[in-house]
């Protein structure tokens, strides 16, 4: 049931560009001027905590929601005023949005029928999607008879047959269990690579973003915090929020005596040394390959990711050390990065 290895792309993606997109409901601002460009064939993740406006952003690209200001371009064409069906996008919904009264096959070709695609062409596209997803045994079933993972595949199938240059996904894995989520993550990525389409993928899970994206757009409170490749997002977070949102466990942020800036150190850059900041152990969590040590550093909690097994009782005094060049510094007031 796994997706075949990346072949040469069968279709091509289209670039997506948002220019100063705003959305407000009365006085409640959901998006306060969002601009970004996603190059054709890119896997772009819109990341952020709930209520940050990422789903609103996606729905505006789809045309399911109207922006109160700004412009959406797909493939260089201004689509701001176009209805969803004419924008050249396919979408996978969080709930999968499968029609419960239709069989799997009917669900997949629903859009093709609505667009009056000839039956022979419908059959060809259905066959191709079914082969890609390995769901030939399910075609006559109803969505209610499928497991969560199978429903997910059918939803993907519906997006594949549309052969749209842009695919939008709204938290597509949030209803799956952890194991299946990891599998589907790989499959979706392989699918995007194989089809060569542009992907806009919404999630609140930063591990999904790190593992799948070519480009991560981190949103918070309706604004972009950072727009970067995952490695850059991790290595040089642009804001204090970006630093604390990405990474498991997240970056330690604390103040040091004699420093006006807030300093940040990744837990894996921390080590126990003969010199350094005096702290006391709160708890040691052994994870197998490493141990997460939580320490009390002058009233602030600080996490250190140490290799192997570290046995330390609560209350043990330790010295936390790190290299100066692993230090991130952020403005205490604005939260922006200080180089």
């Amino acid at each position: 049931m796994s997706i075949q290895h990346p072949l040469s792309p069968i279709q091509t993606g289209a670039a997506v560009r948002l220019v100063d997109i705003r959305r407000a409901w009365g006085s409640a601002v959901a998006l306060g001027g969002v601009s970004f460009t996603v190059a054709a064939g890119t896997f772009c993740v819109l990341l952020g905590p709930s209520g940050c406006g990422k789903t609103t952003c996606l729905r505006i690209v789809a045309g399911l929601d109207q922006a109160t200001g700004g412009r959406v371009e797909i493939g260089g064409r201004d689509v701001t005023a176009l209805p969803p069906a004419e924008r050249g996008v396919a979408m996978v919904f969080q709930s999968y949005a499968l029609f419960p009264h239709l069989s799997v096959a009917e669900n997949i070709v629903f859009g093709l029928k609505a667009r009056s695609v000839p039956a022979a062409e419908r059959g060809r596209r259905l066959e191709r999607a079914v082969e890609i997803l390995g769901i030939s045994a399910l075609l006559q079933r109803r969505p209610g008879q499928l497991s969560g993972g199978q429903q997910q595949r059918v939803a993907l199938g519906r997006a594949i047959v549309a052969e749209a240059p842009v695919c939008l996904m709204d938290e597509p894995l949030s209803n799956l269990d952890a194991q299946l989520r990891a599998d589907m993550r790989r499959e979706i990525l392989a699918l995007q690579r194989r089809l060569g389409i542009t992907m806009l993928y919404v999630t609140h899970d930063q591990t999904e973003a790190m593992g799948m994206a070519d480009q991560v757009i981190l949103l918070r409170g309706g604004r972009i915090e950072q727009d970067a490749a995952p490695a850059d997002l991790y290595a040089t977070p642009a804001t204090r929020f970006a630093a604390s949102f990405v990474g498991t466990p997240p970056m330690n942020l604390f103040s040091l005596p004699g420093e006006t800036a807030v300093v940040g150190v990744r837990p894996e850059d921390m080590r126990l040394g003969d010199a350094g900041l005096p702290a006391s152990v709160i708890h040691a969590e052994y994870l197998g390959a490493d141990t997460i040590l939580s320490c009390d550093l002058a009233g602030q909690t600080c996490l250190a990711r140490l290799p192997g097994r570290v046995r330390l009782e609560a209350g043990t005094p330790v010295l936390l050390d790190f290299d100066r060049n692993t230090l991130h510094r952020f403005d205490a007031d604005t939260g922006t990065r200080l180089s």
Partner: protein
Amino acid sequence: MSTRALEIVATWVLAILWVSPLVYAVWTAFHPSAYATHFSLLAPWTLANFAHAWEAAPFARYFLNTTLLVGVVLVAQFALCTPAAFAFARMTFRGRDTVFALVLLQLMVAPDVLLVANYRTMARLGVVDTIFSIALPYLGSAFGIFLLRQTFRQVPQELDDAARLEGSSLLGRLWRVYVPLARPTYLAYGLVAVSYHWNNFLWPLVITNSVTTRPLTVGLSVFASTDQGIDWSIITAATLMTSGPLLLAFLLFQRQFVASFMRAGIR
């Protein structure tokens, strides 16, 4: 005696009270008139009463009238209530809530109150004594609109979004998404509507006065009136005949009906 035992006894008493007219009707209809008020296990069974009733009045024509009436009302109600309910459920327009409140208000008006006013309207339209005139006041139904609106509102927005994105027009979405998902409601509502109009009596009695338009209920009442002489065996046979199709349908589809009612939220 415990509450449970009391409940069981009460259930039986009510059930027997409810079914006794039916039992009496069956007994009388299948036995010669001599046994109408004389119960004997040895009484001979007969179908003659049905034959007499069928010949004594144009029941075939009444059946046709009622079927036409119920069919016209049902089709019109579905056709009119569906778009109205969809508009109230999923579209935003000015005055929507006010108009919907007016529709709900109509639920509070008992149809019999409007008997005279409706008759005048029909007279002005010149359609008195037609099957169409029996149906006309019932073609739009506030209850149907309300029920379908509630059902349509429960259709997940994401299904509507998905259909919209896939290129379905407004009518396409209504027809391919909303209507199929509301099937249990249509079934349950259809059942209520059919039984109501099959049994409706007062309005058809007022508006019709000829054999070619009378529905079964009015036909039966004319048949059973005193000037024809009262023969309970024939009257009960006719009654069973007229209510038979409905009764049979209920018994056959009982399970589906109950399930539909539960899902549609009508109890």
